[in-house]
């Protein structure tokens, strides 16, 4: 409220508190950096697709890893740790969706963007297919988009999807079937 000078002992006390906060993070720096390098692009792609907003995906990526680091959670495996991170990312995206009703469609990559044409694929045809997918995805509910992305883009198992989305494993099969059917219909596949 009012600026005041601090004594050296006060500053030392605050410094000790700050050090303790850093010590209380989920991982040490090396472990975190290795985990981040393994997962960051996948989390970003997931967030970009389910929110439909790249800038928002950047923000949510930062927030997801920060919350992950601050979480007081014991992990039994790498998969458990990864699913927990996706759970945080999903919850943050859902919160944002409820608050803002974010856009449904991910913008296409800019033409001549580095990497877009480098591997010899038909860029125009791929862009068109991705635009079709974006339009089809926009017709789905956020939970359906999340589930389909985890299952078919990332190849997650039903158990991993359940853990990442906070759902019961038993309900994944039917929910996934419905979501897949809706997306396939939106993509023009006749049942």
């Amino acid at each position, binding site marked *: 409220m009012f600026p005041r000078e601090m004594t050296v002992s006060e500053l030392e006390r605050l410094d000790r*508190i700050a050090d303790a906060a850093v010590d209380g993070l989920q991982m040490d720096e090396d472990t975190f950096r290795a985990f981040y390098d393994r997962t960051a692009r996948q989390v970003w792609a997931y967030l970009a697709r389910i929110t439909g907003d790249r800038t928002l995906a950047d923000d949510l990526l930062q927030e997801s890893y920060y919350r992950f680091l601050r979480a007081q959670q014991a992990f039994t495996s790498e998969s458990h740790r990864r699913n927990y991170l996706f759970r945080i990312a999903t919850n943050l995206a859902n919160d944002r969706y409820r608050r803002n009703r974010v856009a449904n469609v991910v913008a296409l*990559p800019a033409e001549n*963007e580095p990497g877009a044409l480098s591997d010899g694929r038909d860029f125009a045809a791929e862009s068109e297919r991705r635009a079709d*997918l974006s339009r089809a995805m926009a017709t789905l509910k956020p939970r359906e988009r999340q589930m389909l*992305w985890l299952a078919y883009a990332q190849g997650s198992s039903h158990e991993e999807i359940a853990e990442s989305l906070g759902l019961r494993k038993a309900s994944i099969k039917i929910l996934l079937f419905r979501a*897949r059917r809706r997306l396939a219909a939106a993509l023009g596949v006749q049942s």
Partner: protein
Amino acid sequence: MLQCPREADVLDALASARWPDRVSTELSQHVASCAVCRDVVAVAAAMREDHDATWQEANVPSSGQMWWRAEMRARQEAIRDASRPVTIAQGVAALLALVFVVAAGWFAWPTLQGLFATPPPFLLPLAIGLLAALVVTPVALYFVLSD
């Protein structure tokens, strides 16, 4: 039918880029006749292509940068939380001081009016002394209490 027993084969063929040209005729024929597998192929092929493209476009901060930001934020939040009681105490003290000054002024106002109407000879030295005390006291307290 929610799931087809051949779904795993179809997904495997898609993941290993064998679909549609390098799979057995039997699997191709099955997909053509199975509604579940047709949906799986349409959805999984589109999503895998999109995933690969989105992956390439991902421009994430470096792990070192991310760690540094998280560390700074954790420190700032810890310091803010630890400083909060002091800030609240300062606010309460300032409010109480203000209330005290207003109340003292309210009660002393009739006496002060009388004093200013017929000022006694010691009023000026007294006022100067009080003013000096107001300036000197905080400085003296600072030197006494600081490390």
